[in-house]
């Protein structure tokens, strides 16, 4: 396959808030502005820093580091814990601003979004002007401390690449005219989607820089690097053709949790598991679905990983049904292993209206239980999460606390549907 570089006009805008969680904390607390701060998942030396501020990055603090490592690099590092409601509200506010410019706004994560202006092609629209206007409005309408990177390109990949060229607070445009020049300054791992392992595979195929990657033939990439359809995707993506405009439907609902200090007994694991299932179950029910499949994984000491999945004979809807199904799978785990991380997910979804009548059970009885479950959900919607809960969830306030899945998009759908204010 031989394709020229796409000469499509750049109508895709990618907007990325700089050091999102840390910047929002600095917006909220003027005393933290200009200081190195890090938002960490947990308040312990091994807690992971999920967002260092721009000032902390100058000391070498990076996302994914432990607090201990961050403090070693920057002793004055100020650690704050995440405040998900604050970040969600900022997300809703910046998305609202974006939708004033185009109907097609695609959130990519809590701090990133794409605005597609393709429908306005030929109207003389000036995306650079709009980019600067959005930057100004974020400062005016959210906080004067808020900065973002804006990238404009002919496809989503190039728009994202443009948004990463000058951090923080940059605005760049990539077109077919400057594409090769931009690539000449980027390392392979600067491209979104190329990690160290892909870089190694490219190097083995004698591709050592981005320009060589661009010039490589699609068949060569397929044969020597990717050995799959991804070779075609990369070939087109690098040339400015759009292949990433795919929306994936929700196929599962899951939750996971890191257990401080680990847990191995049923008494320790039961409340954690029940709360995880309740949270996943709430999302499943809000979606109006039932699930047939269960998947569970555990991570033990020394990196020992155990997981199992199973399809149930009948669909599951209430937390109790999910919990019973989960326990059937979980009981097969290796006993006496101390678990440090646990995750559950429910898959094989279908609309809840399709209820299989029971042959050996009282169908009316379990339908009554489902109605009861819906009623409890409604009470919790009205009065607050976990106001009505089962005995298994007593004293679990500090377990499985609210978190934002970093980079996740599915959670945002819940946010738009049920938390719009």
């Amino acid at each position, binding site marked *: 396959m031989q394709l020229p570089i796409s000469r499509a006009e750049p109508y895709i805008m990618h907007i990325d808030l700089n050091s999102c969680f840390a910047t929002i904390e600095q917006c909220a*607390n003027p*005393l*933290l502005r200009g200081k190195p701060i890090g938002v960490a998942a947990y308040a312990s030396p091994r807690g992971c820093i999920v967002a260092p501020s721009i000032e902390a990055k100058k000391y070498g603090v990076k996302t994914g580091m432990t607090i201990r490592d961050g403090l070693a690099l920057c002793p004055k590092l*100020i650690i704050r814990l995440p405040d998900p409601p*604050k970040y969600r509200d900022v997300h809703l506010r910046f998305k609202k601003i974006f939708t004033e410019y185009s109907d097609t706004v695609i959130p990519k994560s809590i701090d990133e979004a794409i605005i597609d202006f393709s429908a306005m092609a030929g109207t003389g629209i000036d995306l650079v002007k709009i980019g600067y206007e959005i930057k100004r409005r974020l400062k005016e309408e959210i906080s004067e401390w808020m900065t973002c990177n804006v990238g404009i390109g002919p496809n989503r990949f190039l728009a994202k690449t443009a948004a990463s060229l000058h951090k923080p607070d940059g605005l760049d445009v990539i077109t077919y005219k400057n594409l090769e020049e931009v690539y000449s300054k980027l390392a392979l791992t600067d491209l979104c989607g190329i990690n160290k392992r892909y870089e190694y595979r490219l190097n083995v195929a004698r591709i050592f820089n981005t320009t060589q990657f661009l010039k490589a033939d699609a068949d060569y990439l397929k044969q020597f690097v990717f050995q799959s359809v991804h070779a075609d995707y990369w070939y087109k993506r690098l040339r400015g053709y759009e292949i990433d405009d795919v929306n994936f439907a929700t196929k599962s609902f899951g939750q996971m949790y890191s257990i401080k200090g680990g847990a191995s007994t049923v008494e320790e694991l039961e409340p954690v598991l029940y709360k995880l299932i309740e949270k996943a179950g709430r999302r499943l029910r809000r979606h109006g679905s039932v699930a047939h499949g269960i998947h569970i994984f555990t991570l033990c000491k020394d990196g020992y990983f155990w997981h199992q999945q199973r399809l149930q004979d009948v669909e599951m809807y209430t937390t109790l049904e999910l919990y019973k199904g989960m326990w059937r799978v979980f009981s097969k785990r290796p006993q006496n292993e101390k678990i440090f991380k646990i995750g559950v997910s429910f898959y094989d979804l279908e609309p809840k209206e399709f209820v299989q009548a029971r042959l050996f059970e009282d169908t009316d009885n379990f339908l009554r239980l489902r109605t009861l479950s819906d009623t409890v959900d409604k009470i919790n*919607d009205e009065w607050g999460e976990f106001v009505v809960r089962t005995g298994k969830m007593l004293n679990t306030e500090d377990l499985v606390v609210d978190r934002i899945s970093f980079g996740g998009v599915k959670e945002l759908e819940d946010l738009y549907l049920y938390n719009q204010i």
Partner: protein
Amino acid sequence: MLQKLDERVDVIAIFTKEAPMRQSGTKIYRVRWKSREYNVTSFGLHHLERRGSIIHHVFSVSTKTLKFTLVFNSKTLVWMLEEVSDATPYLSC
């Protein structure tokens, strides 16, 4: 230092029309907490939080040395002080 609280406080605030378009125009001037008055010197962030079906307006404001998280319950019209912090590390790592 970061202290979580749940205390009712006195707040002097105005809801002004003199605000840029699309902004709430809420200005907080003074907070009285534990019989002491604090003049607000800078405004941080205003965000909304749904707790059950009730919308709470969360205002992050600061004095010269302290940051207050003030929550205005839109149903009861009560101001609560939920957090006080400064800019020092509060984790002992």
